[in-house]
């Protein structure tokens, strides 16, 4: 085990996969000499050359679009989009093209592209950079949506993404890049998609979260413990595929649930989780399932982002409400 930050874990995973498979290459803006705006590829161009760590023109659609073509030629591309908020410029290549290639070609062609896209608030970034729009990509059959929350998770999930045949949108929490440190297994470490992780054991209420909201839920669980409430924290890890059975088991064990995410409320992925809970575990429920999310306003400028983002106190209040409901 080595202690790493999230960004170090991502960088070392990319490096390990590039050493393992010469078809792995990275496309992105500023990823060469600069090493990417967050240094996810720092030093990698010097090691692997300009043909494998490729500085691309500033055009997201052709980063994703050419990654599709490269994958059709037998390469295994990782496309770095600087921020998930810029995926809109590539939306028409991700949604109707990348995600559907296998289906529309009846399996004749596969497009094993991994798109890495950082997102999330609390880092005082300019407009559009922080938007949590992961739910938009969960409504797209054929695209896996992966949300690592810790450095070890990032390694295990990114390795699975790069080695898999199906395309992945790999969403990295900006706030966790340097703030979240943790032990990362050395050598081979893969995490299967579609299996949630219990990040903290608890008996009274389940807090569902993914990405940076997992740390938020863990903080809330610690605060709740001081009040004598035992909160279980569940990290969904992958939104697509969704661990339906794991969600049922978690809710069955506590009977109460709160879903926490950074994106606005309406049609956020929390709605899908709540709906899944009522389909799968209705008779285990002791209380209505609650959501703690950002409000239905656009991501604001940074002067007011702390008000926008879900806070520990709101998660604590929701958990209390769930536990006290009869």
């Amino acid at each position, binding site marked *: 085990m080595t202690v790493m930050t999230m960004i170090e874990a991502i960088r070392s995973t990319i490096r390990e996969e590039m050493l393992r498979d010469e078809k792995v*290459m990275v496309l992105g803006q500023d990823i060469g000499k600069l090493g990417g705006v967050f240094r996810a590829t720092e030093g990698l161009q010097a090691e692997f050359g300009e*043909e494998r760590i490729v500085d*691309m*023109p500033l*055009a997201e*659609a*052709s980063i*994703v*679009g*050419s*990654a*599709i*073509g*490269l*994958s*059709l*030629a*037998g*390469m295994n*591309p990782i496309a770095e989009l600087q921020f998930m908020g810029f995926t809109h410029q590539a939306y*028409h*290549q991700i949604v*109707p*093209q990348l995600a559907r290639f*296998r*289906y*529309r*070609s*009846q*399996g*004749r*062609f*596969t497009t094993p592209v991994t798109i890495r896209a950082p997102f999330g608030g609390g880092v005082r970034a300019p407009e559009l950079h922080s938007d949590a729009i992961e739910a938009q990509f969960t409504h797209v*059959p*054929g695209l896996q949506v992966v949300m690592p929350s810790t450095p070890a998770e990032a390694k295990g999930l990114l390795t699975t993404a790069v080695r*898999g*045949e*199906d395309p992945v949108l790999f969403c990295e929490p900006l706030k966790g890049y340097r703030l979240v440190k943790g032990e990362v297994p050395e050598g081979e470490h893969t995490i299967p998609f*579609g299996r949630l992780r219990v990040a903290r054991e608890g008996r009274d209420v389940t807090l569902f979260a993914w990405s940076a909201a997992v740390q938020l839920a863990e903080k809330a669980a610690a605060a709740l413990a001081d009040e004598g409430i035992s909160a279980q924290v569940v990290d969904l890890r992958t939104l*697509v*595929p*969704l661990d*339906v*059975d794991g969600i049922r088991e978690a809710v069955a064990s506590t009977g109460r649930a709160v879903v926490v995410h950074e994106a606005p409320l309406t049609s956020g992925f929390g709605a899908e989780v709540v709906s899944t809970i009522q389909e799968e575990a209705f008779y285990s429920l002791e209380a209505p399932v609650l959501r703690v999310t950002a409000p239905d306003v656009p991501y604001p400028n940074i002067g007011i982002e702390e008000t926008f983002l879900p806070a520990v106190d709101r998660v604590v209040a929701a958990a209390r409400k769930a536990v006290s409901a009869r």
Partner: protein
Amino acid sequence: MERRELLDASGALAPGIDPPLDAASTLGALELMLLSKLVDERAFSLQRQGRMGTYSAVRGQEASVVGSCLPLDPGTDWIVPQYRELPALLRHGLSIEGILSYWKGNSEAARIPEGVKVLPPQIGLAAQLPHAVGLAWGLKLQADPGVVMTFVGDGGSSEGDFHEALNLAGVRKAPVVFVLQNNGWAISTPRSKQSAAKSFAERGAGYGVPSVLVDGNDLFAVAQASAEAVARARAGEGPTLIETQTYRLGAHNTADDPSKYVDTDEKLSWEQLDPIPRVVSHLRAQGALTDEDLAGIEERNRNEVDRAIEALGAVRPPLPESLFDHVWSQPDVRLLRQREEILHTAAKGVQR
């Protein structure tokens, strides 16, 4: 930009020009052009009989499509189509019934056979172009000798993907040939409302991509320009943009009504420039085509299309369970449950 013209509307070669194709190749190209025209006619009537879905005819653009693909080697090179390139796809290894199966709504039967280097048709216009660039770049990275040819229209060239793809192809020196078929129309929007540029070909300069403007109804001009572009790509010299100026003599597709927007005089003048009769005239003048030869070609084509349409009729419709195939390499538990529920209901007979 000067337009390349080798074979005029009467079938006469420009003075001092050697034909870029020999008589045998020209005859082969003519046969393919006539086959395309016949498929268009038969597909239109199949659609009108309710035996097929929407179909987009090639009619009028046969020289543009066939001339472009002639330098390609189906064994090594790729075609990344839009959706109006039927004869090029036939030459590259697809069957008529395979192509028509797509328009009939049967993806399983339209599946590109293993080994055939063609991507599926593209409905999101110009979205295929970055794929073509990436594919060509990937071949180059692996020292594969293949060249990629991709097609787009005058309308599609207004999309951002066109510009991003040309830009990237120039930067990476990707072995890709962009064939921009300027057929005068994007459904009902005329070329004049598509761009203020004098030609589409001149846009290549903005991306450092060599480009050429050709009479798209002139088989020889198209074939020559394409051969040069493919040779450049193969030699590692990078991409080329070819604008073929042609004209869509038919409708955009079987759901379109061009009588609402096409100027009759304009269409009549383009009919005089039909790409097929000039090849026939040229070959006759060379003594390379007799009435019997032409009758023989037409008979072979008729037999081939009859066979294909019979085969199309015999294609098994997609099974309900195929709805769920090929979304993923391994379906997840959610999809498997949806499959079970829907197929269980379907098995009892679906009330619509």
